């Protein structure tokens, strides 16, 4: 029986060399907030590569057209980054609501993607933002792929998370619904990127989490808002679209009855956050009267 070997490359060159030299199965660990929790047996063999100390894998670059985030960047760093908040506040919001303070300090954006939990809080934002990933194969080749094309079981390492500048929109929001408000796993979460000016929406992209194994882009909801004035009638169509999307995503599931209704409240919260209004604004009350 070969024991599990653990290596901690100091930089990307060492990381590449490590991967190139390993013929057997490789697993990666960064914050360890999913891999190390009790009840999940750690692999007994193969190579475990610790990414936490790889120089150059944790960064947030927001100065260029594309926003680029290192795969080992912690969720806490995302939540606190002013540059990121200026470009895509929804990602900071999602990061700030992810797990607990301790989890956020350890968990990474790459881990949130690779762990592929249906309720992962960063995922709907990344999906709505048209995110691409820079991936590294064991043989040293690097390639880019759309988030929706990424296969967690491929074993390819997420080096960078790229939010293309041309897909970022001026407004964004993230909201979640869990058993409680804080330190809670999402039963449903929504993210939105939008153009919004003079009370009118331009382009809108919405994605939902915890409605399936991967984030669900909600095209009907996009269409219900896109190009429309923010007014009760628009909101009612939007809420109807959300319910339709939920029905289509989880037909017959035990949670369908609840989620198709609760998504209305979450949807209004989403728009309120995106356009800078209080969810208690009269506009939203009128939409559901």
């Amino acid at each position, binding site marked *: 029986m070969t024991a599990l070997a653990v290596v901690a490359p100091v930089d990307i060159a060492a990381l590449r060399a490590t991967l190139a030299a390993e013929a057997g199965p490789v697993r990666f660990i960064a914050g360890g907030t999913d891999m190390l929790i009790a009840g999940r047996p750690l692999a007994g063999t193969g190579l475990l590569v610790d990414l936490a100390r790889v120089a150059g894998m944790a960064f947030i670059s927001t100065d260029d057209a594309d926003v680029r985030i290192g795969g080992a960047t912690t969720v806490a760093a995302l939540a606190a980054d002013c540059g990121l908040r200026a470009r895509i506040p929804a990602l900071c919001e999602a990061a700030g609501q992810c797990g607990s303070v301790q989890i956020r300090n350890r968990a990474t954006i790459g881990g949130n993607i690779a762990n592929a939990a249906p309720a992962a809080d960063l995922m709907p934002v990344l999906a709505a933002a048209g995110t691409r990933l820079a991936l590294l194969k064991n043989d040293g080749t690097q390639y880019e792929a759309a988030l929706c094309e990424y296969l967690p079981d491929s074993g390819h390492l997420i080096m960078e998370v790229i939010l293309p500048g041309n897909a970022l929109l001026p407004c964004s929001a993230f909201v979640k619904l869990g058993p409680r*408000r804080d*330190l809670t796993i999402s039963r449903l979460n929504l993210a939105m990127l939008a153009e919004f000016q003079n009370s009118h929406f331009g382009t809108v992209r919405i994605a939902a989490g915890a409605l399936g194994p991967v984030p669900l882009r909600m095209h009907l909801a996009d269409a219900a808002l896109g190009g429309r004035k923010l007014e009760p009638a628009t909101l009612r169509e939007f809420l109807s679209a959300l319910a339709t999307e939920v029905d289509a995503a989880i037909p017959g599931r035990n949670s369908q*009855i*609840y989620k198709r209704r*609760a998504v209305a409240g979450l949807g209004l919260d989403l728009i309120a956050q995106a356009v800078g209004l209080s969810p208690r604004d009269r506009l939203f009350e009128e939409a559901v009267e």
Partner: protein
Amino acid sequence: MNQISRRVPLVDGVAKVTGALRFTADLDVEGLLHCALVFSPHPHARVASIDAASALAVKGVHAVFWHENTPARYYNSSIWFAGQEALADERMFAPIVRHVGDRVAAVVADTEEIARLAAKLVAVEYVSLPAIFDPEAALLHAGLAMREDGTPTFMNPVAYESFVRGDTEAGFAAAELVVETHITTPRSHHCAVEPHACIAKPEPDGRIGILSPCQSVFAVQAVVVQALGVPQEQIRVTKTPIGGSFGGKAEPILDPLCAFFALALGRPVMIRYDRHETFTATRTRSSVMGRMRLGLSSDGRILARETETLVDFGAYCTGGDYLPSSMLQRLVRLYDVPAERYRGRAVYTNTVPAGAFRGYGSPQIHTVAEITLDIAARRLGIDPVAMRLRNLVGPGAIEPWQGLDVGNARGRECLVRGADAFEWEARRQMGTGRGRWRRGIGVASATHINGCYPGFHEETTATLKLLPDGRAELVCALHDLGCGADTTLAQIAGETLGLRACDIAIVPADTDTCPYDLGTRASRMTYICGEAIRRAGVALAEAIRAAAVLELNTEAAGLRLEAGAVRRQDGSGLALSDLADRLVARGVELPAATETYRAQANPGSYAAHFAEVEVDRLTGCVRVTDYLAAHDVGRAINPMLVEGQIHGGIQIGIGYALYEDVALDRITGVMRGNSFSRYTLANASEMPPMRVVLIEEGEPTGPFGAKAVGEIATIPVAAAVVNAVNDALATELTHLPLVPERILAALG
């Protein structure tokens, strides 16, 4: 007053926050072996065979135990003294497993890691048997619970309690309104920070010493003796510091196993459960299905009440057969009900056993009764506070079931002063609002007992002795569960002796060195143990004064104990340490006093809680936005600790109302809420601002007028919150917890 009504810090607080205090799993015991258990994945099955060969082949494994090589003795883990009659249906390992998580086998090894690895190698073949998860269906599995030969049958109902007073039919006939409700309460878990743990070690004289974070060393001893069939004197139990219990550690679950393994192997053994095991293989609060019928006059006077309760206590009886009568006991001492009919039953199901949990039936029955009362108030259009005031018992009332005097019962003051401080009337005038978010307010009253009187053994013995350094040693089999009982009781002792709480050296509870005590249960620490300690303190003070007569050349009557000294009326005197020195020098034994206090009463503690909630009608989420708890505590020995108890009680109660349920699957019997990621507690951000109003009118039979607060603090909370939600939404929700799905479903 020196120590009473003072916010004295916890006597063990610094040791706890600095990590100096050693909990059981931290103890360094030479030659300690470790244990891991194999648990049943089936809700009901016969263990057809066990093959331990692979596990035994692992290096470092010492033994594998299961039903064929452990005592086949039935016991009841809830007994608290030797010979106590209780339905003995549990075994260390049984050939038939009765719930998912039931014990099947145990591996003892050099390390916990080896034991857990080897436990996975124990091959068990099961033959599935039909399982019952629904308590009403369980009633159909009917028969006597025990055969004549003492063998348990696991037939239902196990317990039956009934009570009739007055003419209920006439009461209902005269009623302006009759309300009928069906209310269910969930299986909730204690969630103590410290998981279950126990160490047993063979002593050179052939005895077994058990180190246990327990609620009664004598209960542990009694259960271990019953399970192992050894003489009582062979088992010594010492209490270790406890990282929370809430009743979860009231029953020795690991101790019989640990003791037997240590005896069989001649080595010290530790068993400690991880969090998952603590959820699935210890105890929960019993769930209750309650049906209540209430007849009221037009002005809100209760004319008649019928109550039916069905308790689901899971796979083993433990103390579950007491619950129907416990609930009755607490139900009838709150309101003056002229015509009452009660029927309570308790049943087995193939689910994790229920056991003691803060309030022991009181949260369940008061939840049933207080939600019903509120529904009645709303239907009658009467202010719920006014309705309660119309029916509450007052000081000196005699409760109708056991005929006990409820003492200086101040439930009315709790309601009146609580409502005033909460600005109840003004908030009621504000209404619920319109639109998505609705605001509601709720109130609930409650009562609870003070000790086990008139039950057996409701007495305790305390010894206080002057130490050479001028402090005093207290021996009283005390079991502080982390709530501050040691501090409170040290304050009582200190008050009588002119010492500070930190000057009282408390000897850990130990079956060898302490006189018998029931332990921490039934809200008896302050009221029962406190009074024994107060009496011992008064007696020791008298003995110290008598001893100082010669040294101070004055009469005892002119001496007082103050600030660690014995003083004459002019203030001159001797430090107690100096007095001790002189007595030792003279060869005189240091003063000591022992007092046994046998309870003569069981007064009620009373409370009224007020909650404000905001409910999101779109998502069904509830937020408790404000909270006030008014408590009749007689006298707060330590107001800070009283408030702490109440704050913690509110946290448990909000969880009970809104979130907490171990969620046993009705098809498979598997517990879904088996970890902190799947079992939702009210965490800090869910907690509302909390205010506490203390009613301190003094209970004549309590030490310095004090009564209990530990359990009652959580009893009215769930009903107050549910009533607030029903107020906000104009609903009649009665099935707890009020998860968002239930709320949206009620809104239609």
